[in-house]
Structure formats: structure tokens, C-alpha cells
């Protein structure tokens, strides 16, 4: 449900940057989404196609780069990927870990057509 609100926000952001760059047309939107950011890629794409109608984003591709959740053990510094079975560091058994990646949610770049 909230992917609709988020996609509206994304469209505004893309259109603003496209206008600043004098884009004729937006071909591809490159988005970075961490696994812990809480957004479902398929529904972002679904809303993107609908909301883009009637704008220069019409028919453009939403390219999503997913970042998996990575933790660093606070005791032995090992970096590992969290999964639901794993409540401790696989190397030393410590329960204290710091999130290193997986929370990202940002527009990375846009691919646009401009006049020569």
C-alpha cells in the first residue's frame, strides 16, 4: 500500500532532476533499495508504470539495485549477511552486530534523452 505514496515521491524527484537536465525523455531510473528498507520492488515497478503515464517518464524502466543486509560483528569484526536463522556471529558467537548495509533507499541516477 505505501509503495504508492513512495512511488509518487520518486516520480516527483525524477521529474525535478530531469527538468534541471533539460531531458526530452526519461529512459531509465536507477534506484538503490536495501533489503531492510521495507519496500517491495514489484509494487514499486507496478505503480511506476501507471504514474509515469502522461509524463516524460512514460514507458521508462525502473532499474532496482537491491542491497542485502550486512552486519559486522562487534567482537571479532567479521562481516556477514543476516538471515532469520542466524542470531549470532557465525565466527565467534557474539550477539552484538552493527548494520553495515541494507537500509538504503535512494535515487542513484537517471538515463535521459537530451538534445545534441
Amino acid at each position, binding site marked *: 500500500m*505505501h509503495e504508492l505514496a513512495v512511488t509518487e515521491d520518486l516520480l516527483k524527484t525524477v521529474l525535478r532532476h530531469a527538468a534541471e537536465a533539460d531531458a526530452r525523455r526519461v529512459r531509465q531510473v536507477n534506484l538503490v533499495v536495501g533489503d531492510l528498507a521495507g519496500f517491495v520492488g514489484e509494487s514499486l515497478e507496478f505503480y511506476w508504470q501507471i504514474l509515469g503515464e502522461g509524463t516524460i517518464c512514460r514507458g521508462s524502466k525502473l532499474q532496482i539495485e537491491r542491497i542485502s543486509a550486512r552486519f559486522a560483528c562487534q567482537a571479532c569484526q567479521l562481516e556477514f549477511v543476516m538471515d532469520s536463522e542466524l542470531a549470532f556471529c557465525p565466527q565467534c558467537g557474539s550477539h552484538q552486530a552493527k548494520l553495515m548495509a541494507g537500509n538504503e533507499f535512494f535515487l542513484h541516477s537517471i538515463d535521459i534523452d537530451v538534445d545534441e
Partner: protein
Amino acid sequence: MKEIRVPVVERILNANDQVSEQNRGWLHKFGIFSINLMASPGAGKTSLILQTIARLSSRVSMGVIEGDTARVTMDADKVRQAGVPAVQVNTAGGCHLDAALIASALSQLPLAEMHLLLVENVGNLVCPASFRLGTDIDVLIASVPEGDDKPFKYPAIYRGLQALILNKIDLLPYVSFDMDNFRKGVEMLNPGVAFFPVSCRTGEGLDSWADWLESRTRQGTQSSD
């Protein structure tokens, strides 16, 4: 015509973040400490708010924002009956509160008379984690019947918390809930987070929660951001 790539690197939800910063500035101007209470539906958000009012309202002047998906005012009515100003915010089916909804609710509260604002978010463990409101701290109410695996299933919400409440501990003898496993998940995601096991039914644990909240409120808004 040629195709080029324009680098952007801008956080989505930037607009929400900006409004949340305005809310925060506004609340701090009035010297109000504020908490965002999140939980699944039925975990006990409203019960906890009422219990907190019962313990603190004679010492700390409060206000409450009640978020709900439907056009109902039950929760806000209960708070008002307890003698505390409350505003009900309806998200019209939306699954989370956002900063703009809080901004309009703030304009309906007697801010000059308040020191503590409690916000009951919409019952949901997923998206409230992504939408900042401008409150000083995020608090999650987990509850025993939901099970001990929730930190592993909803890591994003557990990570950002400044306090975690485990409600309905009166039910521990009747349901299987592995406290060690729950604590492990919490420690991994959010080492050292303030933890309050409570029962809004028997009152157990609520005094230490209320004391903690009172001292955070008195420390005020300086140390929280």
C-alpha cells in the same frame, strides 16, 4: 538526440524527512519531548498510553496523537476521558502515519502547555520504520502472543528503536515464548536498547517504564538528536 546518465543520489522520502525536521523544530521550540509508539495491531499501544497517563499525568503535562486507518475516535476518546488532550488522525486506509499528518495534528494541540507528546502510530511493523515523524525517539511495543521470532522477521523496525517494551507478560505462563531467543534477536539488531517487560493488565513493570520516560522528558530535547 543523445542518451546520457545524470547522477542524482537523493534519498526518496526526502519530502517527508523535511516535514519531519520542521515538526521536530516546532516541538523543540515548545520544549516538548516526543515519542513515536509503534506496534502490531492489538499489541497494546492504547493500553500503554492510558497506563502511562495514569502514572505520569500528575507530574508531566502531556498530549496524545492517535493514528488510525479508519475514521474512528475510540482511542482518542479514551485518552480525553483520562484528562489528556488528544487528536485523532485518520490515514484513510493508509498503513502508516507520515510527517504531514503529524504537522496538522500538532496545530490542534495546546503545545504551549505540554512537555511530552505521545504518538500512537498505525498498527503495522513494516512501514512506520521508513516514515520519520519528527519525534525524538522511536518506541516499539512487542507483545508476548506475537511470538519471540519477531525481531528476526522485522529487523528494520527493531534496529532504529530507543526503547523496546514487551507487553502482556502476564500471558507468559500460557503461551510458548522463548525469552532468550527474543533477547538474542534484539541484542543483535540493537545492542543495549532500553528494554521494559510490562503488563498493562497487572501493572507489572510499568513504573520503571514511566520513570524512564519521565527522566528522558526532563533531560529534554537537547540530548536526543
